[in-house]
């Protein structure tokens, strides 16, 4: 393995972290195996015996809630001959029976039945053959995280200054809870970190989303969605933050010239639903309408959760040059139905009109990264600039076009990649097995 520290300099990173399969394999161990990874939202496994199939990096996981309400992250891999035992995306089940030879597991992961039990060695003990599971599961404000690290820092410590920003996101709902609806999956031909770079990048919208900015100005006039990026975004007060531990924050709110609703470009149902809310809620209708558009912030929880608009998006690495993005729209619990209907149409707006350009650019980057003779990727904007400030909590803030958030996550990436983190799977209540490598 290459000396990883040689691949990260203060102002640039080496191309190999985007293109080398060995480094990708190490990331699956050290990053997606070594620290808290977002798995799902509680509304997706709300009731006892609910389950949801998710991924921990490349590993298929069944996230279950047992009859007592306890969450389990079961590796979806039969202890017998390795077949996945759960092949549905979500549902309710007390047991999972492997279709291959009928081994049956409880939703706590215990092996409860082996058919035709005669013939196994005399010391064959079912309690040694549970579905292996994650040693650590944690939740914060409905977000469920898991890791193979048996001794991770507390989830709250890991989130650090990102935690109150998660609060702000979910507290846009009257009840302080969100509920996830159906999801969309998109694939791009590029490394997973290209999506991560982009999430902390407040310079790209002016250029990457030029069609969206230009069209809105021409067609709908005024200061509408993304108009804050039509000229130098740093003149607007928008900022980006390196929150530590790889988490990043981009705040577009200072760039808005009106409320979220006033600056939302029109979407299907705009007039009818706005009229209905105005006639029903009178003086408070402006506050009600304000819940419909996206949050105008990009909060990225390393290594795989992007909170943006009204979406939770996960980055699932498939291989060094292929990545899946899963996007769930969040509804505001306790908000009028009209608000959540509007959220559906708003949630389709930029993703279908603007995101294809992001994916296009990720693919162009991956193609360019194939040039082995040009080795470095620059992230120097704002480094050492006088406008960069560090708060008492260690949050580093800079103007929105600066690349501080990217430099911050790459430092966290390197730290995790070099750490001597143990990975453990729990085979049964008594057997916790450390994994080599």
């Amino acid at each position: 393995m290459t000396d990883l520290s040689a691949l990260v300099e203060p102002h640039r990173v080496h191309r190999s972290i985007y293109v080398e399969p060995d480094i990708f394999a190490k990331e699956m161990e050290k990053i997606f195996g070594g620290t808290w990874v977002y798995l799902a939202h509680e509304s997706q496994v709300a009731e006892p015996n609910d389950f949801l199939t998710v991924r921990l990096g490349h590993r298929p996981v069944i996230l279950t809630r047992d009859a007592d309400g306890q969450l389990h992250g079961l590796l979806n891999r039969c202890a017998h001959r390795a077949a996945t035992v759960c092949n549905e995306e979500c549902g309710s089940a007390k047991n999972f029976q492997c279709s291959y030879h009928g081994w049956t597991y409880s939703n706590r992961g215990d092996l409860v039945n082996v058919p035709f039990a005669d013939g196994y060695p005399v010391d064959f003990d079912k309690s040694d053959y549970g579905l292996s599971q994650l040693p650590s599961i944690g939740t914060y404000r409905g977000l469920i995280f898991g890791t193979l690290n048996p001794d991770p820092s507390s989830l709250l410590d890991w989130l650090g200054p990102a935690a109150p920003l998660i609060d702000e996101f979910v507290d846009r709902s009257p009840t302080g809870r969100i509920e996830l609806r159906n999801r969309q999956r998109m694939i791009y031909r590029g490394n997973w970190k290209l999506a991560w770079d982009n999430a902390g990048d407040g310079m790209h919208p002016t250029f990457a989303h030029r069609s969206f900015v230009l069209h809105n100005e021409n067609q709908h006039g005024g200061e509408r969605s993304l108009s804050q990026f039509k000229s130098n975004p740093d003149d607007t007060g928008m900022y980006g933050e390196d929150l530590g531990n790889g988490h990043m924050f981009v705040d577009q709110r200072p760039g808005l010239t009106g409320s979220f609703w006033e600056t939302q470009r029109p979407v299907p149902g705009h007039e009818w639903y706005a009229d209905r809310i105005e006639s029903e809620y009178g003086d408070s209708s402006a506050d009600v309408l304000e819940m419909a558009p996206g949050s105008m912030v990009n909060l990225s929880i390393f290594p795989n959760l992007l909170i943006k608009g009204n979406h939770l998006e996960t980055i699932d690495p498939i291989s060094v040059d292929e990545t899946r993005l899963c996007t769930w729209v969040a509804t505001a619990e306790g908000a009028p139905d009209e608000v959540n209907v509007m959220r559906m149409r708003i949630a389709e707006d930029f993703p279908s009109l603007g995101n294809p350009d992001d994916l296009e650019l990720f693919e162009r980057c991956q193609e360019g990264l194939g040039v082995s003779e040009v080795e470095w990727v620059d992230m120097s904007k704002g480094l050492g600039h006088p406008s960069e400030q560090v708060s008492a909590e260690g949050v580093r803030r800079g103007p929105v076009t600066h690349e501080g958030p990217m430099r911050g996550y790459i430092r966290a990436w390197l730290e995790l990649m070099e750490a001597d983190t143990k990975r453990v799977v729990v085979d049964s209540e008594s057997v916790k097995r450390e994994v080599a490598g």
Partner: protein
Amino acid sequence: MTAEPPSVVDDGLYERLAQFASTRRADAGPSDPSLRAEAELVLYHEARLLDDRHYRTWLDRFTDDCIYWIPLDLEGDPRQQVSFFLDDRRRMGDRIGLLETGWMHAQNPPSRTCRVVSNVEAWPLENGDTLVRCTVVTWEYRRDQLTPFVSRNDYELAAMGDEWRIRKKIVGLVDSVGDVRKFAFIL
């Protein structure tokens, strides 16, 4: 810049779409041969307009109260679920307007497409419109990749004088819930 009519989307329209989605798989019986022959001409013309990227002319083939919907959940209620998109005429105009800026990188270079329209069936509806169901394979070539988009499409066609207009176009991708490649052309 072309002004498009304001949104026609309201709760009544959603109700009809939800009803439409929930009965998508109901057997409508054998189709009407003469309606089918007329519908085929409309669909082939639409496919040709899109393959040749005559997007404004394509939009003119729709009624003012039209809906162009690509759902994720083919049988779900669009009030409860997010779609790839559910467009009224105004947002269809936006989709074309973005392409016309010349700055939509995901269409630079533009996709070359070839649509194969098949299994066309048509039935009369109570309101005088015509329900059409068909299967479509849209092949997209772009940047060295040939990608198929496979769908079962539903249309509602309105007779306006001696012309047909499209009142609804619903594209049911067979892999809508799977890993979909990005598409920035009009499907």
